[in-house]
């Protein structure tokens, strides 16, 4: 590898530890030893909420921090909690969405493998805030290491009395259980996840009622992504005002971007919201591999957008990207060099959707197959220009009519690929 000597010479790969919030401990402490987590200040926030804060104050703090859901939809976490917190119910649940399935995303895996107690601490704080005595962490079945580390962490937290009955004499009880998936991307959708947790086929439910009101076993249920929850203890420890000093207006805090593809140093970085694509590629991704030219980045996973070099300096945060009809999604950044054929990549994206469509609703299960047949035809050089309009027309109809976000998703990559890289398609059509 050419790059290695380059790195060794400078002795400076930027791990960016100073900017890390959710991955502060990952790659530093022993994830299987609760005392190391406690040693770096772990469970301080838990102690603080139990001894000094009322549940609604916790909700308020998170609300003020402006923390947005990191699963892709960017829904304000505090607002989500505030719907469930005041409800009177015999049972409420926190569910952690650890079904990280968006292609190119592995941030939640790093948090769970590297710092499982951080997830547990955030979960407990959320549970205290909304008044839930039980939480579930739903992990995809493929993440075997996450499952075993989290199971160990839960046992340790119980042994230390951090979890369990009447925690530190506060009168608050809490139990955390792991639920395991079995291979279905759609279970990342919160209602499909709940279905799966209940032992069913993981197909989405009608909303309303939203899970916050009627979720798991018809009880009020807050579903949060792992990365979202991993921000919570830092917000409680340092306050909402501190949190708002990070990131950009409206999108505070850091974002874990996973960067891969044709870069020298694929991996992941945690940087402030609003870091540009260029910075992410050059500073954290080590630049383009083998000195090739940048052509495109698929941002946000399969449900994301193909961005061209015109977008290199745009701030990568939820709001700014929305202005450009793009999405940040899960924060996955797949970088493609000049040699990559976007038609091939779009084919791969659509194949993914066809494979993962759950089959519940007609436009998605049939639509993804129609889209696949079309792109496959184009890929094989048998397409015509009108097929490009057809791809957009069908995915637009799917966007308007599909049951859940999965069927709505193909529009983004299809539209952006055709609009930004039309040449690639025309070459195939000729």
């Amino acid at each position: 590898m050419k790059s290695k000597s380059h790195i060794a010479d400078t002795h400076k790969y930027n791990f960016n530890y100073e900017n890390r919030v959710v991955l502060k401990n990952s790659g530093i402490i022993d994830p299987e030893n609760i005392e190391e987590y406690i040693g770096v200040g772990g469970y301080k926030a838990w102690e603080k909420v139990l001894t000094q804060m009322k549940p609604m104050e916790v909700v308020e703090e998170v609300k003020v921090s402006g923390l947005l859901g990191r699963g892709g939809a960017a829904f304000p976490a505090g607002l989500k909690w505030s719907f469930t917190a005041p409800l009177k119910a015999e049972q409420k649940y926190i569910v952690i969405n650890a079904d990280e399935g968006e292609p190119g995303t592995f941030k939640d895996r790093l948090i769970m493998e590297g710092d499982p107690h951080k997830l547990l601490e955030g979960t407990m704080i959320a549970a205290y805030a909304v008044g839930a005595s039980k939480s579930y962490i739903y992990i995809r079945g493929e993440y075997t290491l996450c499952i075993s580390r989290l199971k160990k962490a839960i046992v340790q937290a119980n042994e230390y009395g951090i979890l369990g009955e009447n925690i530190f004499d506060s009168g608050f009880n809490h139990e955390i259980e792991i639920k395991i998936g079995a291979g279905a991307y759609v279970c990342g959708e919160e209602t499909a996840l709940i279905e799966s947790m209940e032992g069913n086929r993981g197909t989405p439910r009608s909303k309303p009622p939203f899970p916050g009101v009627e979720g798991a076993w018809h009880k009020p249920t807050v579903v949060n992504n792992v990365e979202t929850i991993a921000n919570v203890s830092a917000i409680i420890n340092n306050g909402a005002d501190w949190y708002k000093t990070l990131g950009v207006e409206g999108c505070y805090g850091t974002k874990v971007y996973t960067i891969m593809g044709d870069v020298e140093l694929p991996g992941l970085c945690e940087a402030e919201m609003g870091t540009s694509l260029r910075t992410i590629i050059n500073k954290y991704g080590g630049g383009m591999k083998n000195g090739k030219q940048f052509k495109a980045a698929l941002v946000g996973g399969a449900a994301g957008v193909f961005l061209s070099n015109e977008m290199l300096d745009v701030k990568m945060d939820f709001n700014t990207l929305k202005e450009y009809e793009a999405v940040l999604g899960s924060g996955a950044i797949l970088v493609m060099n000049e040699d990559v054929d976007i038609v091939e990549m779009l084919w791969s994206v659509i194949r993914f959707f066809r494979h993962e469509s759950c089959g519940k609703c007609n436009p998605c299960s049939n639509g993804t197959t129609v889209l696949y047949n079309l792109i496959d035809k184009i890929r094989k050089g048998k397409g015509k220009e009108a097929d490009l309009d057809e791809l957009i027309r069908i995915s637009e109809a799917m966007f308007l009519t599909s049951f859940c976000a999965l069927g709505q998703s193909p529009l983004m990559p299809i539209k952006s690929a055709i609009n930004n890289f039309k040449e690639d398609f025309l070459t195939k059509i000729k």
Partner: protein
Amino acid sequence: MIVYLNGKAYEAKPEETVLQLALRNGIYIPNLCFHEKTGKAAKCRACVVEIEGVPGLKTSCNLPVTDGMEVTTNSEKVLQAQRMVVDLALSSGQHDCLSCEQNGNCELQDAAYYLGIERPSFQLYDDDYEVDDSSEFIRVDRSRCISCGRCVVGCNETVVNEVINFGNRGFDTKIIFDDNLVMGTSACVQCGECVQLCPVGCLIDKRAIGSGRTWELEKVETVCPYCGVGCRLEVHIDRKQDKIIRVTGVEDSPTNNGMLCVKGRYGFDFVNSEERLTTPLIKENGKFREADWDEAIALVAGKFSDIKKEFGSDSIAGLASAKVTNEENFVFQKLIRREVGTNNVDHCARL
């Protein structure tokens, strides 16, 4: 509460959905998966409408009415989306109406007709589905299944036989019986609820196939002749042949809510049976001869009177059939108790 449908005001009931309100007032919105009994599945997505002030489109089958709501069911945006949705459903299988038993009674056909879809735009169907003809009364042709889910809900939640579910995923989703058995070897009791709920030609009464177009049949409502529950049913009759083609349950019947059992739905072959007695027979010298009712009744009444005189009332007992109605049973026990003078009366209590 007032709801506007295409600009016109309608009085809505608080519990109903936009689709229910529209259908109740004769405004058609294409819909394939909704059924009053199986509920708002929002799976087919054909019933999308526009709501003033709400971005995008909403499915009307699971959209509760709100006061002052302004709904558009026929804008170009709505029709275009509906057209794509129905086109996709039509493209997904082998929906060749010419030979389909459901022709004229098919909700997919109705939706496609309403939207002006002449033929499916896409070729999605691959013919690796075999028709499941293994069961006695029901043919399952999955090439016509649109995964609406009515049969699944019907089997699991309405009749609670719990035999049907969805198997596989995505485009390959199909209905399965038990642990993926053919219908004939599954625990299916052939109640036919799934057939009645199926909006297309996937689940079909096997014996009706090819024996009469639905619009040529006369539908006569009656009460099931079997047990005493009194299920209301509709007999579909071909008058030319004077033959029953099929039987369906009456959906708004309070006794059976459209449901029937295997006997009520499929046990009508006795009607045209060669062996069925239609004239009374009197045995003389060891041989039956045909008689008329007056002669037969007079003969039986005379014999009963003789027996009663000679051996007393309690030497006679009456046993009624469970096939007769409660009213008929009432009359029968009156006859035995008052005219014969005995309490020896019973009912076979089973068929």
